[in-house]
């Protein structure tokens, strides 16, 4: 048999297969036992609204309203499943594709587009959502996540004796990112410090055009062994399994047992970004194979089979997606260009004479145009 290396399904935790059938796992099924039909509908709701919104952002980019768009398309289960395992004291360090996790942390989705419209580099207050800004430099944030987790530990937020108060950090990154030195260093720091951090790698099989096989010969989760941390490979298109393993990992980290590595095997159903052209490096057949494993479809099949997806609910979700799309479009078109002088704001926390001088010069310079106009 062909050795699939990093794409093998060895050891993959799966609780719901793509035919919509429930599977049993000794360790993780108990973590799914509490999921009521109502909770599953919530997952279905979030994944569906997220996808509808993602498509709206896509069309806004195509219409020239956004400079770029980075889709979460295909990764809804990994993001919504893991996101729902988080709670208030936890803190997330995303990369730049985790719109689904942002949603579970209460970030208003349209506001994310301020970044992609070139208005600012970060459009939410991380502390308000327990959700850090997006980081575009691959892997850099994993060290921040680890340090933040070390800080939580020092501050008594881990293994405090009151399990409800304990927190942990989840750091999201892609398969390509695992090649960066910063990721290796984070795993080292997390491991020797027993930091409460869950490394959540969404292996969507691509780093732009490069297959994950350019980054590793073995399943990525196996790397964690070298750091002596537990690792889990999970079907990233199975929202139930993603939720269960993340809950397990968070409990492990929150209770002072140190870091966990999760590899969620999924598939980037869209292009890397709107600047990318996947036809240059992958086949239609590959895309079709994975579209049959669509993360939303399998939950639909399961819920339908259990008679738990009433038409009114589906219609309400579709309407909500539409309304969010309309609000997004309206917001984006309504954002006017900020005053140019704002570009000098926030470079430093305290006044810096160079910035002050340049700002003052620029203000006079802009004023000179206004003066010329006024005298005409």
């Amino acid at each position, binding site marked *: 048999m062909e050795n699939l290396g990093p794409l093998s399904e060895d050891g993959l935790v799966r609780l719901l297969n793509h035919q919509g059938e429930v599977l049993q796992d000794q360790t993780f099924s108990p973590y799914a036992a509490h999921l009521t039909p109502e909770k599953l509908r919530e997952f279905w709701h979030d994944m569906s609204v997220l996808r509808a919104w993602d498509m709206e952002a896509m069309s806004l980019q195509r219409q020239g309203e956004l*400079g*770029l768009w980075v889709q979460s398309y295909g990764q809804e289960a990994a993001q919504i499943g893991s996101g729902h395992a988080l709670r208030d004291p936890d803190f997330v360090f995303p990369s730049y594709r985790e719109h689904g996790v942002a949603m579970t942390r209460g970030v208003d989705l349209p506001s994310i587009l301020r*970044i*992609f*419209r*070139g*208005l*600012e*580099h970060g459009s939410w207050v991380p502390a308000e959502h327990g959700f850090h800004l997006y980081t*575009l*430099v*691959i*892997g850099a944030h994993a060290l921040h996540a680890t340090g933040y987790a070390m800080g939580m530990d020092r501050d008594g937020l881990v293994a405090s004796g009151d399990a409800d108060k304990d927190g942990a950090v989840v750091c999201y990154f892609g398969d*390509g*990112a695992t*090649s*960066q*030195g*910063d990721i290796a260093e984070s795993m080292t720091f997390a491991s020797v410090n027993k930091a409460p951090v869950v490394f959540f790698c969404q292996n969507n099989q691509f*780093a*732009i*055009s*490069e297959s994950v096989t*350019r*980054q590793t010969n073995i399943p990525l989760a196996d790397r964690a062994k070298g750091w002596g941390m537990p690792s889990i490979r999970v079907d990233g298109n199975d929202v139930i399994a993603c939720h269960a393993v993340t809950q397990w990992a968070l409990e492990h980290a929150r209770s002072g047992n140190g870091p966990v590595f999760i590899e969620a095997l999924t598939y980037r159903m869209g292009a890397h970004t709107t*600047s*990318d*052209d996947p036809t*240059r*490096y992958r086949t239609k057949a590959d895309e079709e194979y994975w579209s049959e494993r669509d993360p939303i479809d399998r939950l639909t099949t399961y819920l339908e089979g259990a008679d738990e997806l009433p038409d009114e609910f589906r219609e309400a979700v579709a309407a909500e997606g539409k309304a969010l799309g309309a609000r997004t479009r309206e917001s984006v078109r309504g954002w006017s*260009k*900020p005053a*140019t002088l*704002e*570009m*000098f704001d926030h*470079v430093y926390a305290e006044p*810096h004479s*160079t*910035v002050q001088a*340049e700002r003052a010069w*620029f203000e006079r*310079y802009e004023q000179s*145009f206004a003066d010329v106009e006024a005298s005409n």
Partner: protein
Amino acid sequence: MSDALINATGTTTMTMAGAINAGLRAAMERDPKVLLMGEDIGALGGVFRVTDGLHKDFGDDRVIDTPLAESGIVGTAIGLGMRGYRSVCEIQFEGFIFPAYNQITTQLAKMHYRSQGNITLPLVIRVPYAGGIGAIEHHSESPEALFAHTPGLRIFSPATPQDAYDGIQQAIAAPDPVMFFEPKARYWDKGEVNTGTVETRLSDAAATIGISGSRVAREGTDVTLVAYGPTVRLALQSAELAAQAGTSVEVIDLRSISPLDSDAVVKSAKKTGRVVVTHEAVTTFGVAAEVSARVTEQAFFHLHAPVLRVGGFHTPYPGATFEHEYLPNLDRVLDAVDRVMKH
């Protein structure tokens, strides 16, 4: 092929991206030890398609899609360099060069010195840089001064397809490490490229000018306007407008940032007595400051006006909606030209 064809000097219209591609191809055909390394440079042809078609023609062995790790790319290219391989490393965007900063500044730049000249590292690091393309964070910056401040690195930035075509080949042939800064907003600008003969594959002028010298992009008598890479086109446009207003501007395209062709700049400064330098990089502690210092040191008594700098502000590169004001533009360059002309 007929002798006539072999000896013919060809001229073709090319984009800058196409010219770099043609230059890479020529270098790879000439020397089997030339390797290309980088992220997405294989089947995809690079995010800017600069290596388009090279993977198909030269294969996996010579056009290498590397793991996503810049320190790894440059560090392994150093080891390969010690075995005689001439790696051309593509950094996808300038903002992502920093994981490799350690390898470039503490290792690559110093190896020749530390080994008393026993080890040469003929690497080229290609860096698409500078802004004006409406991109998100880390995709529009100009970090060249950080590297120019490092002894041991040669730094070149083409402004025309011709210089891109000749320059990349000469950079690969050079025994020293060369950082090749490509102004990404100019990738699709077209120009005439003299591709030399089948033997030379270089323009007739290439041997004379090399990758250390500047060129006068437009002659003038009142003001010397110094630019490189992305701002050369802006400088030429400014000179045109200034001419309409009666001011004669000489434009110098530095081409090489390290070494800096001070002789040419000083010569022009002595002629005009007024110097303006423009680059996209943050102005403070930048290349323009170095040019200004050299002009002041070597042409002080010829100057009618202080040397002025027009560049990026002392802020991180702002969101794309601000970039037209952040970057030097016609108004700001002409404003500086006016100010030196007041003296």
